[in-house]
């Protein structure tokens, strides 16, 4: 691999290639579209975060003294819907994946640039529908839209929110389709499947879920909307229908959707761990195939959400066993990351702190997931804060740590600027501490029997709830800091070199920020991924 001569400043790149609002809104450059997505999802992350803050304020005291019970229902629904559909699912794929996959595979762009831009517009259309529903009073069904409540009884903006989720789903499908075709058809000469960065493998698995799962939830949501709108009874027991069928269709997507959130994050972690250990990943093929295994197995476990929903006990048994199997590829990843650290030349840069934080939090989230997959335990803690804590450890502790780690790692590449090392380390620490303080008490609360989705609770639960709310404050502060220093760095940050971390990969061989067509010379790949040893030898020789 050739070493690019750094010529910082004033070089033509994708950011200064063209100016004006039109050059952004009509762009077909995957890098600019990634920035558009970054702006959109950051907005919704803040919105969802405000909802979370309101929830935690209400729960600081046992009495429901701040909002009405009905308002509380609408609050946690909005928090869930916004965070899941408008932030977590698009977060890493649509921002980092969009930006990096063509760079990592040495392509000029994704296979379908117009489709890529279209997906952003579709996403925003869906988001507008959801925001409109919010402004009209919100929805009170929870983000899961369970029938028969959503189809028959709920007296809130179910249809608008559901349609919003339906529309956003299509943007997710568009992204997934684009990635699959791009990874198959656009790789640089010499870039075989087993030379791909693991980030790309993880996104391939993610895309499989997006295209295979999303249409099913789309039709399920459409059926709920149809049932409300046309007064027909698809899930109505009076017609021999079954409300639980909705849960089947919903979780066929929505369980794998958890892997849409966590798989890209795992891809990021593989990049970070190798870069900051200066080592080739331990067991490349195992890590690569574990992404696919998680994507496939993830489709066969949805019934563990239905253990107490009149699902047959025999089906429950099958789903329970299959759910535990997902732990195998997940553990493969964790073991291989830690094995990669072993005897590595570890440097404590900010992205690495996020990566190590991810591993710890993901292990907690994953192991409690195995507990919940056990029929007997789930009967006890179903719909308690134990479940809430578990999935936040995966979605926030896992997915968002990975997202932020990745953002800190590739920020110099994306913007061509460096951010404050000091403040970024502070924020990484605050987030780790704040996160644990927020959600670990919820495990205990759930185990003691505190149900989710209530705005008041018995007094003996107060201490743990106050701890949780205090943690949320720290967590919120931790999230606020990057927003500030990233914004600051865009204008005042020191200019970044092409490869500020000394990391391995095609994206580091082009300039920071990259030119519109990504590479001045079409790259040819002749080496394995993460070949840090060869990289070091070459440097020493030079």
């Amino acid at each position, binding site marked *: 691999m050739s070493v690019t001569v750094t010529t910082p400043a004033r070089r033509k790149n994708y950011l200064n290639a063209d100016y004006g609002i039109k050059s952004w809104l009509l762009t077909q450059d995957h890098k600019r579209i990634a920035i558009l997505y970054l702006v959109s999802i950051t907005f919704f992350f803040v919105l969802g975060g405000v909802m979370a803050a309101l929830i935690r304020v209400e729960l600081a005291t046992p009495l429901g003294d701040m909002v009405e019970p009905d308002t509380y229902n609408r609050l946690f629904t909005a928090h869930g819907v916004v965070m899941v559909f408008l932030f977590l699912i698009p977060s890493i794929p649509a921002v980092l994946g969009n930006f990096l996959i063509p760079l990592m595979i040495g*392509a000029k762009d994704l296979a379908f640039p117009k489709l890529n831009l279209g997906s952003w517009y579709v996403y925003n259309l869906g988001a507008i529908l959801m925001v409109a529903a919010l402004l009209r009073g919100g929805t009170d069904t929870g983000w899961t839209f369970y029938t028969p409540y959503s189809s028959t009884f709920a007296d809130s903006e179910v249809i608008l929110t559901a349609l919003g989720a339906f529309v956003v789903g299509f943007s997710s499908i568009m992204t997934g389709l684009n990635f699959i075709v791009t990874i198959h058809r656009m790789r640089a000469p010499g870039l075989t499947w087993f030379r791909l960065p693991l980030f790309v493998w993880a996104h391939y698995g993610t895309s499989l879920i997006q295209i295979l799962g999303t249409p099913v939830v789309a039709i399920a949501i459409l059926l709920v909307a149809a049932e409300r709108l046309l007064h027909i009874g698809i899930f109505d027991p009076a017609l021999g229908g079954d409300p639980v069928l909705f849960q089947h*269709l919903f979780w066929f997507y929505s369980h794998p959707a958890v892997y849409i959130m966590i798989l890209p994050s795992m891809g990021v972690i593989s990049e970070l761990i190798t870069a900051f250990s200066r080592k080739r990943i331990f067991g490349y093929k195992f890590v690569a195939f574990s992404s696919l295994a998680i994507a496939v197995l993830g489709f066969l476990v949805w019934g563990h959400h239905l253990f107490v929903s009149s699902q047959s006990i025999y089906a429950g048994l099958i789903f329970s066993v299959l759910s535990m199997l997902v732990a195998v590829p997940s553990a493969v990843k964790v073991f291989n990351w830690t094995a990669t650290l072993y005897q590595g030349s570890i440097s404590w840069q900010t992205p690495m702190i996020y990566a190590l934080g991810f591993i710890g939090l993901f292990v907690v989230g994953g192991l409690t997931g195995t507990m919940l997959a056990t029929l007997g335990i789930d009967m006890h803690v179903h719909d308690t804060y134990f479940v809430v804590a578990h999935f936040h450890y995966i979605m926030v502790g896992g997915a968002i740590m990975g997202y932020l780690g990745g953002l800190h790692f590739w920020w110099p590449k994306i913007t061509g600027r460096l951010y404050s090392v000091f403040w970024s380390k502070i924020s990484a620490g605050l987030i780790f501490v704040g996160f644990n303080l927020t959600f670990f008490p919820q495990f205990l609360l759930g185990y003691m029997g505190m149900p989710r989705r209530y705005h008041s609770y018995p007094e003996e639960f107060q201490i743990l709830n106050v701890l949780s709310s205090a943690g949320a404050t720290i967590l919120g502060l931790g999230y606020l800091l990057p927003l500030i220093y990233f914004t600051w760095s865009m204008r005042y940050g020191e200019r970044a070199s092409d490869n500020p971390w000394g990391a391995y990969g095609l994206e580091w061989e082009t300039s920071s920020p990259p030119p519109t067509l990504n590479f001045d010379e079409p790259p040819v790949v002749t080496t394995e991924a993460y070949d840090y040893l060869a990289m070091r030898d070459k440097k020493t020789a030079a």
Partner: protein
Amino acid sequence: MQGESSHSWGLAHHFDSFDQQREASNLGMWVFLVTEIMFFGGLFTAYVVYRSGQGAAFALGSHELDITLGAINTAVLIGSSLTMALAVWAAQTGRRKAIVGFILATILLGGVFLGIKVVEYSAKFEHHLVPGPNFHWNGPEAPGVEMFFNLYFLMTGLHAAHMVIGMGILLVVAILAWRGAFSPENHNLVEGIGLYWHFVDIVWIFLFPLLYLLGRNIQV
């Protein structure tokens, strides 16, 4: 900014060759069709689940459908698939007028299909077989029969919506073909819409027996 490079006309800037572009377009279409399989799949699942619970009611429902019209429509749609396949063949072999002709024939047959569907729908409407407040059924198993018609209208309705979209795109492709936009090495659009149209045909190939035929043998 795009497409002004030294590439030959019709090759997007980010592809290296027509082959790469064609393979990407073809794979993209297939992946899209997989999402369509899963989209209809949710309804097929609902059908299987509910039919397994109330086979007798579903048999009663299927007796209300006009098997002759259903069979004719099956033939019409398979015919449209043939003309679509021939349109793709015409594009591969560079016959400009034949592309247009076969696509128009496909649109025409699609129109016939939808016309017959309208006749069927209006008959159901007159007989109060449209689910909802106006649904009325004198015989036994009324709830189950209503569920059957729920699924009948949702499945055939979604299918018909796909046909309308397909016919719209076909019309655009026909105009492009008339203007000479396609060549033997670059006719991805014709091929893509062809795959879509055949997929819509396949959905009907399953809908026809599921809705019209199963349960016919049971005497009611």
